[in-house]
């Protein structure tokens, strides 16, 4: 198939970006979206140009490294699919495809389609963990966890930290990301001792990184490649409110 790509190009973090147009000719429909970019890059290199830079690693939808906004949608048109698992058969011969980075103030562009998502790491560092030292753990079956609770924690824990939720949100809010981690850990007995502190500190870190607020539009849920539901956000709001109230009273 033959396509036209309109791609965001930007040399460095501080330089001004622009859209450049590239033909993508003779693309096999079995190729993945990233393999299509590989083919285009091979031709750009052969012609002496600078290849399009984009992040990717596992190419099987689990590492969370790929971060393309395709035709305005983070990870592209297929639901519950990362850009690396999107295949060209979902496009039509002759299509024009717009490819941009994940856009958010907290995700500065580093080059072309590559963005800096270390803000997510700093949010986890603020409280997205259970404070247990290696070697200090009791036997694994000491504390039973009801299956329903464990399954719920697992559902929240499947977040791959890609940032599509932020890129899709008009406020660039990181609430789905933060709430998924808070729900995962606060739902488990092991995570309860730090429940209040975790909610307060992670939300504070999110605000400090420059992410916006949630206005309940659920764009985040719609683009999440792991289908993490927005009711995590409601749980976070509840945990946060309780923790803030407790703080105010003591």
């Amino acid at each position, binding site marked *: 198939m033959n396509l036209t790509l309109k791609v965001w190009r930007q040399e460095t973090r501080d330089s001004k970006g622009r859209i450049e147009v590239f033909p993508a000719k003779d693309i096999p429909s079995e190729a993945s979206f990233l393999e299509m970019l590989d083919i285009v890059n091979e031709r750009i290199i052969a012609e002496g140009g600078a290849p399009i830079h984009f992040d990717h690693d596992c190419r099987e939808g689990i590492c969370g490294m790929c971060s393309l906004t395709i035709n305005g949608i983070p990870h592209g048109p297929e639901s519950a699919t990362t850009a690396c698992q999107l295949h060209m058969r979902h496009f039509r011969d002759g299509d024009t495809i717009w490819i941009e980075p994940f856009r958010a103030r907290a995700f500065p562009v580093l080059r072309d389609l590559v963005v800096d998502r270390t803000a997510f*790491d700093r949010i986890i560092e603020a409280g997205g963990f259970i404070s247990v030292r290696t070697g200090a753990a009791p036997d694994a079956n000491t504390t039973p966890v009801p299956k329903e609770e464990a399954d719920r924690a697992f559902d929240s824990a499947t977040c791959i930290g890609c940032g599509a939720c932020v890129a899709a949100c008009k406020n660039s809010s990181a609430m789905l990301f933060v709430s998924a981690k808070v729900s995962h850990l606060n739902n488990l007995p092991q995570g309860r001792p730090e429940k209040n502190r975790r909610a307060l500190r992670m939300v504070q870190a999110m605000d400090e990184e420059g992410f916006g607020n949630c206005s309940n539009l659920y764009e985040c849920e719609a683009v999440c490649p792991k289908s993490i539901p927005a009711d995590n956000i409601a749980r976070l709001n509840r945990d946060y409110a309780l923790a803030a109230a407790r703080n105010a009273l003591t």
Partner: protein
Amino acid sequence: MPLSLHSAVPSGPIDQKWTRHKMDSRLINPVNKRKYSVIVVGSGLAGGAAAATLSELGYRVKCFCYQDSPRRAHSIAAQGGINAAKNYQNDGDSVSRLFYDTMKGGDFRSREANVHRLAEVSLNIIDQCVAQGVPFAREYGGLLDNRSFGGTQVKRTFYARGQTGQQLLLGSYQALSKEISRGGVEMFSRTEMLDLVVVDGHAKGIIVRDMVSGKISAHAADAVVLATGGYGNVFYLSTNAKGCNVMAAYRAHKRGAAFANPCYTQIHPTCIPVSGDYQSKLTLMSESLRNDGRIWVPGSISIAEKIRCGDLRPGDVQEEDRDYYLERKYPSFGNLSPRDIASRSAKEVCDEGRGVAPTGLGVFLDFRDAIQRDGHDSISARYGNLFEMYEKIKGEDPYLTPMQIFPAVHYTMGGLWVDYNLMSNLPGLHVAGEANFSDHGANRLGASALMQGLADGYFVLPSTIANYLADQQPGAVTESHPEFKHCLEEVTGRVDTLLEIRGKRSVDSFHRELGLLIWDKCGMARSRDGLENALERIPEIRDEFWSNVRIPGSGEQLNQELEKAGRVADFLEFAELLCHDALDREESCGGHFRVEHQFTEDDAEVRDRRTQPGEAKRNDQEFCHVSAWEFAGVGTRPKLTREPLEFENVELTIRSYK
């Protein structure tokens, strides 16, 4: 000076060695620990766990990864589970049984003491992960669930749906994040190690490149830990992430660290086949599918041709025209034959011209009979997510038409040589996880990679590293040492040389050419002729690379072509080491199959039905050893030193699957 390989295995009965060793190990008091600094390269299960735990102990840690976040290391892609000898199922499991299964699974080519320690430590890993909040699968009573995996007869695998690696990695990443926020670990993401700095024979630091600014800098420490994964991407196509590479391990090798058993590579039988030369990576389909799927190819080449051209649908092939070759050759194990056997058999039928994918390199994994027997819903409950994943990639519905699968490179058992303390022959250089050679012998069992990575990172290294550090004056070597300046200049020179070539061919084109060659000559079946041919071809490809590779852009910016070039340059040298080892090992064992060494009708073992013709034939007389290779110059045969393997607790037997 000949290489001295002292395994440092403690004396005493096998089940007391680790306990005694810990008791005999050196200690550093808490006040002094903070004076020592340790560099950890890699943030996967082994590296992340080691960095977090060393920091908890009080050491000052610097951790490096090439990804944009430590949470993205490729441990994240592991699906199946993690083994531990908890015996929660009351089905007769024990540390001894896990030890024995792992020794046998490795085809008796691993060190007994290391494997036993792994089995012992497996118990602590599960406790640790649960305490961190890893959401393992549970039963309705709230206790942990288990499933069974290949090569064992007990249920000892803990799992978190098909995402066990992800959940364990997030556990270690969160432990690491806790230590970063406490100030114990300084994290450097998007930073790639380009060389190891050796001062007076000791590993004392590394040279790295900031992948965003391009700045090359030196970092000194009292000890260095490499946890940089395997070298599967030497084959270009593998189930590894695109960025996985051998650079850190190979740079250490060039600076004096011995590389052990590189020829032990694991080829996984059930991956989605290559569909064209644009293909960038291969995707694993879980081994569990073979419980219900039947593997077949057409009995005749002409029918296979019709399927390849699309003139015949697989569902229309008559029963008598189908060859269920695994069921035919291995009636008792059938479709659940071990990975190496299933992989080689698929290659054989495709070599005969009976392969089915458009490229001819694929076999069917057919669920038709299982769906007829158990119903659509029941198959969907078992494998629904895998069927979806297949459909996403191939665009075909496996409920209606059989899956196409083919073997692919998945894991590498070989790695840098380490002693019982996980220290290489270069004092100060420690190696953990897939990057070392130590625990899996010639073949790794399913659900054992996660176990080993976490055992090394959480429990082994944090205890053993003090045996080295206690004799070191903390902070004695800094970046101002002339060796750092020298190494920095060398690395900068190498990067400049790459950029100045300005040739015509892309980095990927060289990587693909090398990968195809290695897959063909040093893949599932290896022969003397093929390996010798590869050893002639590799230097030719390498020479062309260094004269004709094209890397656009400069070194002072984010430059992905430059990153790839550095890695491919090392694969082009490492590939020779791989072939030398495969050529030297005149036997077949585990993931290493030499066509010259297989059982025939003439062997007594075949006549008395302990095995059958075509099976891997070990040579315990001559090859019961670890092959440790020393670098001797680019294009020069490396120097071999053998570490004999002694077996006091297991009896060497033939693995039979009839």
